[in-house]
């Protein structure tokens, strides 16, 4: 292990330990229990988006099948823990393994193809969610169409009350997933995946075992998707096919990763934070009366519209996602964030902390929107030497 990965491991460990004691502080500090559940949801999205991105973001093979792997996780808990009486923590690893087996099975078939691999992979992952959902629906041993209630599941009580336990389970899985994503990114596997993303044939020619790399990464990715789904089953508490296999999971992990940036493990985390806080506030915002009550906008119904618009704007304006820009302009973004929070506090003093956070993060995003070329023109420093002075006349080379 080199020094950088040792520092990263220490930082991860430290962060995880600090967060672990957040539920303990809930009583003494007196903050509402809601924040623990909110924290769990955020950690859940960290895990889901990171698990998706560690394969698709790095390798460029677009998967629409996150819902299937999440669903396998959810239904493993449903069947093993709710129907057969397994303790939750015994069902969770099994869920991860089953999900990974499904992923590896798919990969084994598709990654052997020579041509149109990427396109076929996207279509197959899109189809697999429907197939898994259909199997779950017809099989009475799984769901049978009636849904499964999870209120009898044996929960790990030693982790505290229900909200504390969820927070801690979510934390464990998010930390493991994000750590895996960061480790892959900085390993030979990650290196190989990025080269596959850029030009697979050339990567192969340079000695990258592309089949093996894609199998490994997809296996790990789907393993964590299943783990996270297995824990989430308890949070949903009553699972139905329609809910579990809805478009929500695959759509959100894609939006989050695209927004945050797909070539770095921090991308999905940034994206998940923005999307989750924003949708949470929009869902709770209720109705907005305009023109003296003549026009009523339901913000919670506009949720999906806003997410869709955000995706369009981000794809057009910030092609590589926010993280690379955030890394370069972190002080400007931090300043904008603080200004936003302070302004929100002055404007509406009794605004909830999450809403203030949303105002702050939107201010930070605004600072990141102008393209880098524009920013380097503004700043007094001369821009990076991006334009070669000796550009030969090469009209034919395109």
């Amino acid at each position, binding site marked *: 292990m080199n020094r950088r990965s040792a520092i990263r491991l220490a930082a991860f460990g430290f962060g995880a330990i600090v967060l672990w004691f957040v539920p303990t502080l809930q009583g003494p500090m007196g903050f509402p229990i809601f924040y623990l559940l909110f924290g769990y949801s955020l950690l859940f999205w960290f895990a889901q988006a990171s698990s998706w991105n560690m394969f698709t973001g790095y390798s460029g093979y677009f998967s629409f099948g996150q819902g299937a792997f999440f669903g396998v996780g959810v239904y493993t808990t449903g069947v093993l823990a709710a129907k057969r009486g397994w303790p939750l923590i015994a069902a969770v690893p099994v869920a991860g393994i089953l999900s990974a087996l499904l992923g590896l099975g798919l990969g084994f078939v598709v990654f052997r193809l020579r041509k149109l691999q990427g396109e076929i992979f996207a279509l197959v992952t899109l189809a697999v969610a429907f197939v898994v959902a259909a199997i779950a629906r017809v099989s009475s041993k799984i769901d049978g169409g009636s849904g499964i209630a999870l209120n009898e599941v044996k929960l790990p009580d030693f982790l505290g009350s229900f909200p504390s336990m969820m927070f801690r389970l979510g934390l464990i899985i998010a930390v493991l997933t994000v750590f895996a994503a960061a480790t892959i990114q900085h390993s030979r596997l990650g*290196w190989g995946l990025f*080269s596959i993303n*850029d030009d697979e*044939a050339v990567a192969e*020619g*340079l000695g*990258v075992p592309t089949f093996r790399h894609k199998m490994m990464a997809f296996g790990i990715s789907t393993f964590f998707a299943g783990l996270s789904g297995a824990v989430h089953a308890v949070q949903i508490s009553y699972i139905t096919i329609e809910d579990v296999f809805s478009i929500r999971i695959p759509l959100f992990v894609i939006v989050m990763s695209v927004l945050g940036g797909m070539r770095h493990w921090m991308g999905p985390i940034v994206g998940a934070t923005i999307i989750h806080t924003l949708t949470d506030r929009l869902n709770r915002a209720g109705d907005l009366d305009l023109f003296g009550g003549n026009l009523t906008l339901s913000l919670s119904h506009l949720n999906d519209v806003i997410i869709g618009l955000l995706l369009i704007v981000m794809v057009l304006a910030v092609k590589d996602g926010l993280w690379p820009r955030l890394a370069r302009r972190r002080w400007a973004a931090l300043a904008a964030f603080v200004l936003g929070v302070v302004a929100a506090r002055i404007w509406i003093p009794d605004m909830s902390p999450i809403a203030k956070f949303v105002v702050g993060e939107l201010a930070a995003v605004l600072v990141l929107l102008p393209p880098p070329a524009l920013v380097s023109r503004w700043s007094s420093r001369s821009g990076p030497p991006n334009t070669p002075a000796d550009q*030969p*006349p*090469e009209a034919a080379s395109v």
Partner: protein
Amino acid sequence: MLEVRDVTAGYGKAQALWGLSLEVAEGEIVTIVGPNGAGKSTLVNVIGGLQAAWSGSIVLDDQELTGLATHRVCASGVAVVPEGRRVFPEMSVTDNLDMGAYHREARQYRDETYEYVCGIFPRLAERSEQLAGSLSGGEQQMLAIGRAMMSRPKLLLLDEPSLGLAPVIVETIFDIIRDINQTGTSILLVEQNVVEGLELASRGYVLEEGRIVREGAAADLLDDEELQASYFGM
């Protein structure tokens, strides 16, 4: 060192190579010339392991390459500089070069080889942090060659390195290919640029419609009147 025997290959039902044989001796530069669609790129892909041969054999230093997985062909000492350069545009120059030293044998010598490559291409060293996609065409060609050299190949396969480059840059690139050869790497060059390509080589082959139609010392091929008429437009 490289022996290609009776190789046939193609795409689907379309056959591109019809029983092709050639060889490259240790330390030699061999150039293959031929018109568009003669099967030059197919030949490069087959030798580099990117495409499977239908029949025939390819042997490098007594090691059979036919049927090996692509990444194993690279590890056994063949490096390809693909047509159109194809650097990894989203990676920095250094990361591109590191990708060349991906397989285990090359990785052990990574620092040493990196020094060597920066020695041949000082321009790349100057731009080490820049994204490869933002380099000029000539620089990208240098990077593609540098990246291939990072794998410490015994045989360097170059597919149309002069494609789309200004004549003055082509001259630089060809000088560098000669330098690389003098440090001990054998070179198989596939070129449409017949005169420059053959001037660089000791021997040459003429490829037409998937078959070798002429072979011989490069100087003889350059003097050949028939070839001059059909290729050099003299």
